[in-house]
């Protein structure tokens, strides 16, 4: 199988050159995950201009340097690092160059801060060996990224004294959820904003900062109404972050129970999380510029198709801009080497 270009030509116009203060929503379901698409966003923003010239989007690269701040609630840094490597992106080096900042919302989100003592011991025991191997790709025997590796979070778990180590690892910040209600969301927002500001301080005029938030719906699911956090609070939180970035990309789950149980036809048995999640996702789709929906093939599994990608205009699209975003539906296939082929129906 011929190796695919890192950025499929069909996708190039949708994942690069996102307009100012735009929101792009990537929706995924269990059978069709969104990480490959997020990686394409990363690649479009971070790759050196030369490989991109082939896709005709080079003229806007001139002079504009792009920075990415990525907040991930669902997958660990190790996962993103290995997957990005397959696309030719070295996240650790980019983080060194202050072009990329990773905020870990997964490993210590609900980790009690008083447990500092235990990880520091483990860090002393295990810490040195993984750190030396970090700049290189992990050993080929290791699972190539499909499952998060538990080793890394625990070794980096120590706080306070390991800040330089974290910077070395490429993790700019780890999020901690504490308290309840809006105050806790505000604290998370402040953490993320501090990283954004740090990135911005290095920016020249005209540089663009892309904010990627991977599955913030986890935060909603893990807290919920009992913590005083609902769909409105979550979307306000996202709006507040959005104001500090040039463009924002969000990934959210749209599995049927999370969306359709709460609809009026679904009966009255919707649980609070179903209602809140549906309200969050649909509300965000109303303000998004474009919605990229991933789903499995309607006709069942196929050997050479991984799923369907539908790109639609969201409710927040400017009418004047309507022509610039063409709606389309395409099939995609993730190859064994991580390359992705995107093609129309009937093509191959």
């Amino acid at each position, binding site marked *: 199988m011929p190796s695919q270009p890192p950025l499929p030509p069909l996708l190039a116009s949708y994942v690069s050159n996102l307009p100012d203060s735009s929101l792009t929503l990537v929706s995924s379901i269990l059978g069709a995950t969104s990480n490959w698409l997020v990686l394409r966003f990363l690649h479009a923003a971070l790759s050196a201009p030369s490989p991109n010239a082939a896709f005709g989007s080079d003229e806007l690269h001139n002079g504009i340097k792009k920075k990415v701040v990525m907040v991930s609630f669902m997958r660990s840094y190790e996962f993103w690092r290995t997957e990005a490597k397959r696309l030719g992106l070295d996240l650790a080096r980019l983080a060194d160059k202050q072009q990329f900042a990773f905020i870990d919302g997964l490993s210590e989100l609900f980790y009690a801060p008083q447990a500092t003592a235990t990880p520091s011991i483990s860090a002393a025991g295990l810490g040195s060996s993984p750190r030396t191997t970090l700049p290189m790709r992990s050993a080929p025997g290791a699972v190539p990224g499909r499952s998060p590796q538990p080793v890394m979070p625990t070794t980096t778990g120590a706080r306070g004294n390991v800040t330089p180590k974290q910077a070395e690892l490429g993790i700019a910040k780890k999020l901690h959820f504490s308290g309840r209600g809006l105050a806790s969301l505000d604290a998370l927002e402040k953490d993320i904003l501090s990283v954004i500001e740090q990135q911005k301080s290095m920016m020249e005029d005209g540089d663009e900062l892309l904010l990627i938030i991977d599955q913030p719906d986890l935060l909603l699911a893990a807290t919920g109404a009992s913590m005083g956090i609902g769909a409105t609070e979550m979307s306000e939180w996202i709006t507040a972050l959005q104001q500090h970035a040039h463009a924002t990309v969000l990934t959210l789950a749209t599995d*049927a129970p999370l969306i359709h149980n709460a609809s009026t036809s679904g009966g009255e048995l919707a649980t609070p999380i179903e209602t809140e999640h549906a309200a969050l996702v*649909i509300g965000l789709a*109303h303000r998004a510029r474009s919605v990229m929906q991933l789903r499995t093939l309607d006709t069942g599994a196929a050997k050479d198709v991984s799923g369907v990608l539908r790109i*639609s205009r969201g409710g927040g699209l400017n*009418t004047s801009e309507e022509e610039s975003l063409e709606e389309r539906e395409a099939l995609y296939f993730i190859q064994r080497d991580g390359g992705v082929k995107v093609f129309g129906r009937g093509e191959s």
Partner: protein
Amino acid sequence: MAPINISHRRTHNLLLISKLLSLRDTASPLTLVLDSLEQPATPLLKEYIRRAKLSKVHVTLIAFETLKRPEGVDAFVSTCRKSPADIVKEVSAVYQPVAASNPSRRRLILIDSINPLLSSKRVDPGFHLASFLGSFITPSSPRAKVDASLVVTYHQDVPELPQQNPYTPSPISVLTYLATSIITLHSFSHVLAQKAARDRSLAPPVFGLEEEQEGVLLGRLDRLAGTGKAEGIVIELEHRRKSGRGVLEWYLLPPASQYSPQHLKEIVTLLDDSVLYNPPMERDPGAGDEEPTSTFELGLTDRQRREREGVVLPYFDAQHGDGPGEGGRILYDMGEEDDFDEEEDEI
């Protein structure tokens, strides 16, 4: 009957929508716009702003989900982390300088989405939607005379949270009760697809979330719908007059690219007048019903038709089974205009 009706609707209802969208005579103090992902309200709000600019109306946007101030909006009020009382205060504050310089200026207040406010956990339980909305329309001081119109957008597809108090009505029922006009938006291509299905007595297709297909949020793919270039928004309007009489009408708002921003004439048309919705082809079979003209009168008068229907045909009579040989007679009652000819009968 139909042609009279449609010309009546054309004159009256087009005047009505023109009045509503241009905010003339404060025809509707509170307009509720019900939209969905399939047809967002953005183009309609743009049209409101465009017309307000033409007639020099002061436009305030209360932004629950808009990030940047859209073109043409005079005052942009962000609601991020603000209580309803703060919002009301700020909205009246931005108008103060305008009111001082030009007191007769009319005002349009747009709310881009009321849903976040309705489902917010921070708003205290004593929050009263009716008085919140009312406080925008009624002037703060009695001597200041302000003609304010409020346009509230409500996303129909965002699920409502269960009510804390089971005896209070849901926010959407309160809104529909308060509103003087309710505008429901539909995508033109979907309306066409549904009409095409109905014309063939098929179940009308559903789109987007209503498909209930896993992973599909939006079904709005213009080209997939197979209806060609059906652009525009279908507006379903329910207007409540002061007399209490309601007006129901369907309109078509063409896309903004089809007219210039300074266009003054009415661009909204009745949906029934749309060539795509009511193709002129349908008129032709109606015209074909007319008889070919000749010197003979080939038609029947009503009376003739009635009498013809009254004739019992032989095979009906035969079914009574009065016995062999009895059925199948021709039963005919002589009418007065029948010219009985004995000679003919004898033959």
